[in-house]
């Protein structure tokens, strides 16, 4: 099992390119199941979850090929099975995203229920109820969601909680349903908008993506297309925090500043000078220590839960005291215990972490518990005195493409070693 070794103290400076968004590419790859004809997806990050999705499609008999630019071409004309087996679903909860497309296109689907999750419950009930509202016959037996239908029928469906994958699954299914579907209380995340853009490029008729009401006029068929996925806003935010926490100056290219308003506002509050262009963002701390900031996570366009752990790390070395309130997921302060081992002063009360900035963190062996927690430990390691060892970094490989190469390019002293 690999680990990362980080020698703290380097001030990050330089430019890097941001990868395509994992949270956009996974639903888009699932949506290729809807197409009649090959679909080509560009700007695909090389991540474990992408590989797992390729494997999932492959087990169904779908042809997936990758070229040297990491574009993925998916041709579902050879599909032989509509089953997402437990062995794959248990490693990647977003496998549930094939449920809607399989059902809408082939009239049947069997998808294993995902298992437990380290960062709280993420119910699949909404996916099931929404598809049932569209006329699907669904039962849960032997750990599998087994769904059948003739043709899905358009419906009005109010989601009782905001869910990104639920919105995406139902939007994909409704694209081939007969008639109009209206999804109320829909997720507004940019990745939902990107999926809608992809579906529309294939011939779907979707309006309202990016608002809480999405309307889908079902069509009889969708055609393959070529599509470039949106840049990864969470990777962008993470590297901006890396620049801020080290008092550095970084420029991130191939990104989209319009997706990060709430994060950029918080970074400005911390003392960063932010400049933006059409597809780039620069951050300059002018060598200053960040100021503590208060953060409250909420669904987009508010501050993203996937940036909470990174800002917790930023506050650990900031001037003053900042509070972090997590309202999206339960049990998402697992990184706190590890960062405390590096000398951070953090107190957790319910869904709130109170972080009192300290002058210095000190290196320690720490263990990653989930994807974004891993990122926060690396960020803490960048400013800790001594060599920090981050274990269980397979979490980080699920969401960050070439993270140590990119950080090293910015001047961090970081290396991956076996063991």
């Amino acid at each position: 099992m690999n680990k990362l070794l980080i020698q703290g103290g380097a001030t990050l400076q330089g430019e890097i390119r941001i990868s395509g968004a994992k949270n956009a590419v996974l639903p888009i790859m699932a949506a290729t199941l809807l197409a009649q004809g090959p679909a080509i997806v560009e700007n695909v990050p090389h991540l474990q979850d992408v590989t797992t999705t390729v494997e999932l499609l492959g087990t169904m008999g779908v042809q997936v090929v990758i070229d040297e630019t990491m574009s993925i071409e998916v041709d579902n004309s050879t599909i032989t099975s509509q089953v997402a087996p437990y062995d794959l679903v248990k490693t990647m909860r977003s496998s549930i995203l094939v449920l809607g497309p399989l059902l809408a296109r082939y009239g049947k689907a069997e998808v294993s229920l995902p298992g437990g999750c380290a960062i709280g419950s993420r119910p699949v009930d909404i996916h099931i109820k929404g598809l049932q509202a569209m006329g699907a016959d669904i039962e849960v037996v032997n750990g599998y969601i087994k769904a059948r239908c003739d043709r899905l029928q358009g419906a009005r469906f109010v989601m009782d909680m905001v869910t990104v994958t639920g919105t995406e699954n139902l939007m994909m299914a409704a694209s081939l349903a007969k008639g109009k579907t209206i999804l109320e209380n829909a997720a507004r995340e940019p990745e939902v908008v990107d999926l809608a853009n992809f579906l529309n490029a294939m011939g779907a008729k979707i309006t309202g993506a990016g608002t809480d009401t999405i309307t889908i006029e079902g069509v009889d068929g969708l055609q393959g297309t070529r599509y470039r996925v949106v840049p990864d806003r969470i990777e962008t935010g993470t590297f901006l925090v890396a620049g801020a926490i080290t008092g550095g100056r970084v420029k991130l290219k191939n990104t989209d500043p319009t997706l990060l308003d709430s994060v950029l506002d918080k970074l400005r509050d911390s003392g960063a000078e932010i400049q933006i262009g059409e597809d780039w963002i620069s951050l300059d701390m002018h060598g200053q220590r960040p100021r503590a900031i208060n953060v409250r996570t909420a669904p987009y366009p508010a501050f993203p839960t996937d940036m909470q752990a990174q800002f917790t790390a930023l506050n650990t070395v900031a001037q003053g005291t900042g509070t972090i309130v997590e309202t999206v997921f339960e049990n998402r302060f697992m990184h706190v215990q590890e960062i405390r081992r590096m000398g951070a002063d953090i107190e957790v009360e319910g869904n709130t972490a109170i972080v009192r900035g300290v002058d210095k963190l000190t290196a320690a062996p720490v263990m990653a518990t989930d994807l974004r927690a891993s990122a926060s430990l690396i960020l803490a390691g960048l400013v800790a005195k001594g060599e920090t060892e981050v274990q269980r970094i397979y979490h980080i490989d699920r969401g960050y493409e070439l993270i140590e190469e990119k950080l090293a390019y910015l001047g961090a002293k970081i290396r991956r070693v076996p063991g």
Partner: protein
Amino acid sequence: MNASLTFEQGIYHLSGVLDFQSVVALRDQDIWSAGEPQIDLANVSNSNSAGIALLLEWLKLAQQKGVQIKYHNLPESLGVIARAYGVDQELPVTP
């Protein structure tokens, strides 16, 4: 088929485009009667991961048959994909 395999002076020469359509037919060609096959990839004009799948499939068959297989002149496009997916060290490539 948009790829071909020819045998000259003890070496198989692979040329054309390696994609999902062409590699299935190539996989089924007999490259084993000449003993330990050597395959020159210099004239592969284009390829995606289907090409890597073919090279790994031939490697697996060679191991099952207990013979050695060698690849020469791996195109950079295939090298990029092999490195990205961590299989570059498994492919028996010689210049």
